[in-house]
């Protein structure tokens, strides 16, 4: 039976929210393909055996895994430099047809290198579609969202490696998973590193992001910030807003700047360029507030308001129950 391998990050004995969501999606895909789901989970040394391992195996089984492989690894950065050897060895033994990573910083470093090692097809952050015959199709928008690349899994003669954004529903089962032991090399010795906190890290995982574009001014920025606060979201900026000093450049959303995976992405006064929206998860629902009804943002947004920012944004804040 084909194997679907899920790279699973664990935090405090449970899969991270993104890992849990990706495991749920893997369960749905594997059920369509008739495949077995292996969760390969990275745990602190000592937690790969005993009660902690049993408890995690149970959690992962309920989350969609049929089999669980636990790899003991010190808390090093999640990079190919530290994990690649063990990951590649696990794939050499399990020979997965499909390997899935959460599309976070670690997944984006590990997944393409593993794909190259396996000679696999690689698809970053696709939308999962099911065709009329039940076939699984990986589709992703490219070229400013005007074209889609579509890859049908059952047509491939190569293994496939995929990264998925974490905004997905969890699998909720009662199945027991079986723990499997593989003969893996220890995680590599970490290269010398020094770390410092990223004060803007919450932006990457925020459920709601409100972004100010070039149409926002010093006068209207407080209105946009109040909307973000009312939504319980994070405030960010496009390149235009950051260049003008309205938003801290560390909070710029764009390709090569910050990537975000919110459920709701509110765009105020931004045109919606490819360099901006390319950093927003395709699963995000985009809401636009802009005065230009011909801006490209309207091709990406689901809903929106056309008009003056200084009138619409306070109205939206008030409609949400806040003080405009």
């Amino acid at each position: 039976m084909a194997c679907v391998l899920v790279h699973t990050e664990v935090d405090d004995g449970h899969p991270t929210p993104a890992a849990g969501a990706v495991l749920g999606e893997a369960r749905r895909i594997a059920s369509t393909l008739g495949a077995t789901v292996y969760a390969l989970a990275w745990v602190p040394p000592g937690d790969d055996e005993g009660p902690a391992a049993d408890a995690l195996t149970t959690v992962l089984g309920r989350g969609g895994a049929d089999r669980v492989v636990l790899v003991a690894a010190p808390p090093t950065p999640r990079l190919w430099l530290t994990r690649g050897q063990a990951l590649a060895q696990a794939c050499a033994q399990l020979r997965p047809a499909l390997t899935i990573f959460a599309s976070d910083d670690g997944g984006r470093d590990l997944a393409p290198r593993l794909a190259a090692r396996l000679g696999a097809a690689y698809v970053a952050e696709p939308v999962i579609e099911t065709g009329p015959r039940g076939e699984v199709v990986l589709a992703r928008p490219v070229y400013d969202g005007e074209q889609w690349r579509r890859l049908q899994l059952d047509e491939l003669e190569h293994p496939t490696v995929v990264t998925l954004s974490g905004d997905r529903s969890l699998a909720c089962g009662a199945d027991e998973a079986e723990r499997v032991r593989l003969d893996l090399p220890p995680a590599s010795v970490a290269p010398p590193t020094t770390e410092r906190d990223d004060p803007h890290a919450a932006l990457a995982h925020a459920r709601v992001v409100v972004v100010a574009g070039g149409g926002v001014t010093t006068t209207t920025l407080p209105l946009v910030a109040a909307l973000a606060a009312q939504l319980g979201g994070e405030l960010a900026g496009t390149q235009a807003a950051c260049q003008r000093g309205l938003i801290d450049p560390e909070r710029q959303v764009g390709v090569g700047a910050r990537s975000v995976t919110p459920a709701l992405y509110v765009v105020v006064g931004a045109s919606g360029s490819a360099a901006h929206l390319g950093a927003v998860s395709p699963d995000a629902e985009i809401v636009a507030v802009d005065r230009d009804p011909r801006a490209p943002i309207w091709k990406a947004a689901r809903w929106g308001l056309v008009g003056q920012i200084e009138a619409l944004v306070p109205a939206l804040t008030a409609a949400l129950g806040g003080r405009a």
Partner: protein
Amino acid sequence: MTVAVLLRRAMARPGQVDDDQVLGPCERGALVAGLELARALTVEAIAIAVGPARREERVLAMALRAGCARAVRVGGEGLDELDYLGLAEVLAAAATSVDATVVVCGDRSVDERSGAIAPAVAELLGWPHLTAVTELRPHPRGLEAVHLGGGRRIAVQLPTPAVIAVLAPAVRANDAGTSAAVGAPASQAIVTADPASLGIELRRLSPRRGLVGRLRPLRGTRQATVLPGAAELVARLREQRLVAPAEPADAAPDAAPDAATPPDASQPEHAR
């Protein structure tokens, strides 16, 4: 030691260049970081691009003007149809041909955004790689690169040779932006290579063309639903559970002024 900078022209559509930008944000970051590293190491930076002359020579000319010592374009039929690994094989061979010891490239392109090239080139060369790099400098052990990951900025020391994938250069507030296209006009020629001269047999790579995926235009013209007012928008968001439900005493949606006004596109509010 030589620093190879892998570049690619931003594309608006397949086979169609983007008139608004020659380089994507990450490619600009790669060019800036590659040149700064080469200067710090007092070695040559060599720009490499794959694709037809009409598309890639402008990129390479920009790299030469910015300070690259040489530029190499790999051209040939069928190169645009390769998947990430086929393209990486060509790039790895080109980097080898210039005796690169550090390969710097953009973390992801603005059009395809897969972020696979740097790790794949590293795999083919058998070198370590690091993605999402915001700073790059020499270190007594090789390189020190700052990786943005897991809510932290992590300075990682890597041995050389290595492949580094760079994010966009930092935007400077109250500045018109950074540009790599500075320096004296380029007098150096762009060297053209074909895959065969790099030891690449394109026929062997052709099966990988099936792994790119079929390109299809978006069916119909997608267009947002423009709602008449804020209350209607909030109602939609609540239906979809994207925002918290209204509290019982919350009369705000009805009280919210309907501020949507007919657009006046003749009076642009801002430069986009």
